C-alpha cells in the first residue's frame, strides 16, 4: 500500500466513527456516557466523567499510573477501550475512599509517606489493593520459590516484584513497600 493509500484509508476511518452510548458501572454507580469508540477507559474516566484521580503517565502501559480495578483485578486503563467494559465493575481511586474516609491502603500510604508528588499514587494504591488479592488467591510470581503451593508468603521481594509495573519517579519505593506491608498486616483488603 502506498503512503497516499494509507492516508486515504486513515481519513475514511476518521470520518466514520460515530459516538457510542454506553453505561459504565464505576465505583458502584452506573454512569451513562457517549464516547468515541477510540476512547480509552482512562480517557473516559478522566475527560468524560471527570474522575481525574486515575492518572495518565505514559498512555501505553509502561508506567502503571492509570491502574484501576476491574472486577477486583488490576488493569491498565490506558490499554483498554471504554466500550469494552459495559458489563464490568470498575473501581477507581475515588471509589476506594475519600479524604475523610480513607481506605486502609490510602491511610497506610499517608502514614508511611509512600509518595511525594502524588501523581503515580492512585495507580500504586489501586495496584497494591489488587496485588494483595492476587497473593491471597495464591497466584505465584516470578520470585515465588514454590509455585506449586497455593499459599504465597507476602515477602518484601514478592511485593517489590508484583509492584514493579508501577513506576514512582520520586522513588518512594521503600515507603510504598512499608505501606503495603503495614496495610496487609493490618488486614486491609
Amino acid at each position, binding site marked *: 500500500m502506498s503512503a497516499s493509500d494509507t492516508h486515504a484509508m486513515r481519513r475514511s476511518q476518521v470520518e466514520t466513527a460515530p459516538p457510542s452510548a454506553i453505561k459504565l458501572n464505576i465505583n458502584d454507580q452506573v454512569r451513562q456516557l457517549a464516547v468515541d469508540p477510540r476512547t480509552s477507559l482512562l480517557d473516559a474516566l478522566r475527560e468524560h466523567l471527570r474522575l481525574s484521580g486515575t492518572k495518565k503517565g505514559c498512555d501505553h502501559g509502561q508506567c502503571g499510573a492509570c491502574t484501576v480495578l476491574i472486577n477486583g483485578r488490576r488493569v491498565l486503563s490506558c490499554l483498554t477501550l471504554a466500550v469494552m467494559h459495559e458489563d464490568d465493575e470498575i473501581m477507581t481511586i475515588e471509589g476506594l475512599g475519600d479524604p475523610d474516609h480513607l481506605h486502609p491502603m490510602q491511610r497506610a500510604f499517608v502514614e508511611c509517606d509512600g509518595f511525594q508528588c502524588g501523581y503515580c499514587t492512585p495507580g500504586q494504591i489501586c495496584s497494591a489493593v489488587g496485588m494483595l488479592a492476587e497473593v491471597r488467591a495464591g497466584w505465584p510470581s516470578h520470585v515465588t520459590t514454590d509455585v506449586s503451593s497455593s499459599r504465597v508468603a507476602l515477602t518484601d521481594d514478592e511485593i517489590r516484584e508484583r509492584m514493579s509495573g508501577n513506576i514512582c*519517579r520520586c522513588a518512594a519505593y521503600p515507603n510504598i513497600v512499608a505501606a503495603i506491608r503495614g496495610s496487609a498486616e493490618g488486614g486491609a483488603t
Partner: protein
Amino acid sequence: MIGQAVNRVDGPLKATGRAAYAYEHWEAGQPLYGFIVGATIGKGRITRIDTEDAEGAPGVQLVMTYLNAPAQGPRDESIPFEYWRAQPMLTGPDIHFYGEPVALVVAETFEQARDAADLVEVEYRAGRGRFDFGEFEDDTYIPKTVNAGLPTDTAVGDFDAGFAGAEVKVDQQYTTPYEFSMPIEPNASMVAPHGDDDLVVYVSCQITDAARDSVAGTLMMDPERVHIVTPFVGGGFGSKLGIHSETILAAMAARALGRPVKVTLTRQQVFQLVGMRPTSSQRVRLGAGHDGRLAAIAHDVTMHTNPDVEYAEQTAATVRSLYAAPHRLTSHRLTALDLPRGTDVRAPGEAPGMLSVESAMDELADALGMDPVELRIRNEPTVDPERNVPYSDRHLVECLREGARRFGWENRPATPASVREGRWLIGYGMSAAIRGHFQGPTTVRVRLEPDGTAVIQTDMTDIGTGTYTILTQVGAEGLGLPLERVRIDLGRSDHPSSWGSGGSWGATNSSTAVHRACAALRTKLLDAALGDTRSPLHGQDPSAAVFSDGDVAIGGASEALREIVARHHPDGVEAEGQTRFMGDDPNYSDYSINTYGAHFAEVGVDADTAETRLRRMLSVFSVGRVFNPKTARSQLIGGMIWGVGAALEEEAVVDPRSGAFVNRDFAGYLVPVHGDIPADIDAVVLEGYDDKANPLGAKGIGEVGICGSGAAVANAVFNATGVRVRDFPITIEKLLPGLPAMV
C-alpha cells in the same frame, strides 16, 4: 512544630485522587484538546505543509503551523535566567531538532485531535545534522559561564607541576549519557481566556513567576494579565523549571479560538520537547603522595549543547569545594549538536560530576591500597580551597565516620572480586557527597483571619517536595497555632512571588520568608493588644510574649489571637516576609555553604550474566536543621535511588542518522522500579543547624541525595568484580567481558 515528623498535609488529597494537576481543572468549563505534531527529521527545512485533510477532520477547530501562528516575542538574552524568557514556537520552516513542533491540531476531543494530527502532511528537505557526540567531541567552544552563573574554568596553583610531581596518579576518562527528568506527570497545560484579554494558565511547572513571564513574553502580553495556577505538580526534577511547547501552543490556540485549550505531551514527546541532561566526557586527574594527600586535582568536562539555546551543566564545579589540594584545575567545554536543548535535570552538574570524581577517588584509593573512607578524611580541607573562604557548618567527616559505622564498612572485602555467595559476587562501595546551598528571593504573605486561622500565600510550588507540609509547620510555630489552623495557598502567580522549586532552595527560601512574616504579624498583634485597655495584655512587656495554641500569653495574662484580630482587624490582618537573593546576603560570599553526605552501598553481581543488583544502601547526611524528618528522609532516599539509576540503568540513545532518541519510552529508557530497590535502604540525617544559611539554620535536601550515590554503587561493582566501567551506566555488556573466570 518545626522538626516534627508530621504526615504530609496534602496526603489525603493525593492518596484519594482528589489533588488536581494541570490537565485536570474544570473551572473554566469543557476545554478543547490540542495535540502536537513533531518533525520527523533532526535538521533541515519544511518544504511543504498541507493541513487541509486535518482541518476537515471531524471536530477539528484549528490547525496551527508556522504559516498561521501569531507573531511572538523573541527569546530575550538580556533576561538573566532562561526560564523567564519567551519561548516562541512554530516560527518558521527550519527544523532544529527531531520532534520539534511543526503543528498543533486542536479538536473537540482528544481522540479527534490525535487522529487529525496524523493527517497533517509535512514534507522536508533534510540537512546534514550534527547528532553524534563522539564524532564532534573535539570540536568545542568555551562558554562564557556555566549554569547558575558559575565560572567556566578555574585554576589554583600550578596543576601541571603538581600532577607531574605526584607519587601516585589517576588519569581517567569517564562518560555519562543523556538523561531525562521524566516525572510521571507529563508536561501539561490548560489555558483559558478570561475577561477581556486575560489568560488563566493551569500548567505543571516549578517556578510560577517564570511561567508567567515566559507566557507573557512569548504572547507579547502584560504579565499582569497572565494568571498561572499550579497547586499540584506531578514531579519536576528540573524539567518543569521552565514552560515548554505544551503551554505556549495551548496559549496561542486558546487566544486564537477564544476557548480553553489543553495540551499534554505524550510520553515520547517528553523525550523530545523538554530537554535533557547533556551527555558528557570527563577527564579526571588526581595526583597524591603515598600518604594519600592530594597534591593536584583536575576535572575537565566536554558536553553537548543545542546551538541556539546554550546550556552548560556545571559538571566540574562540584570538585572545587570538595577536597583540599594545592594545585587545581577545572574546565567546561561545549560542542554544539542539533539535538534538543540541554537543561537542568536533578542535581545539574553535581550528579554526573560526582559520579566521575568519586569513581576516580576510588581508583586512587585502590592504587594507594588505602581505605576509600580514610582517603577522603585525609583530604578534608580547612577552608574552601578555591574560594579561600571558611566553610559554614561542614560535617563531611562526621558523615563518613557515622556512615561507615552504621553500614559495617569494616566488613568490606579488602580485595576486589574476593567474596562470592552462590552465583553472586559481592562488593561494597562508598562515596562522599557535597552540594552547594543557594538562596533566592521569595516573598510570602501570612494572613490571620478573624476566626483565628492563618492562611499563607505565595506563588511557590509543591512538586512533591513537601512545601505544603513544612510551611504549615513553620507557620504554626511562628504564630503558635495548631497545625490544622494553618492553611497553605500555593502555586498562583497572583500571590507574592518566589523563585519556585528548584536548586534545592525552595524549602529554605519559602520557610525563611514565612518565619519572617510570622514575626512581623506577631508584632502587629502585640502592638494592637498592648496598646488596648480592653486587652488583658494591656501594658505588658512584649518581649515576654509567648504564642501558643492560638493564644498569646505574657506572664499570667493571656488573650486569644482571634479576640485581638476581631477587635482590631475585623477583616483579618496580614504581614509579608522576604528572603533575599544570595548575591545580596554577605554570608553567601563570606562562607562556603554546602550540604554534605556519605553513601555506602552493597551490590551483588551475577558471576555468569553480570546482572548487578543493589543489595543495601545507607547514606548519612549533614544538611543543617531539618523541617520534617519524614518528608526529608523520603526526599533523600529518592535522590539516592536516582543515583542508583544513573549508575546502572538510565541512558537515552541518539540515532546518529536522524538525531532522534531511539529509546523514548519507559520500556527503553530504564528508570529504577520497585524490583530494583531493596527494602534495606535508608538515609540518616545528623543533627545540625547552619547559622550562616538562614535564621532557621536549614539547608536544601532535594539534590544532595543524588550527589555521589551513583559512584558508591559503581565503586561497589568494582569491589565485587575487579572491573572498572567508566562509561555510565554500568550495563551487562560493559561488565561481562571483564568478569573473573569462574572455576
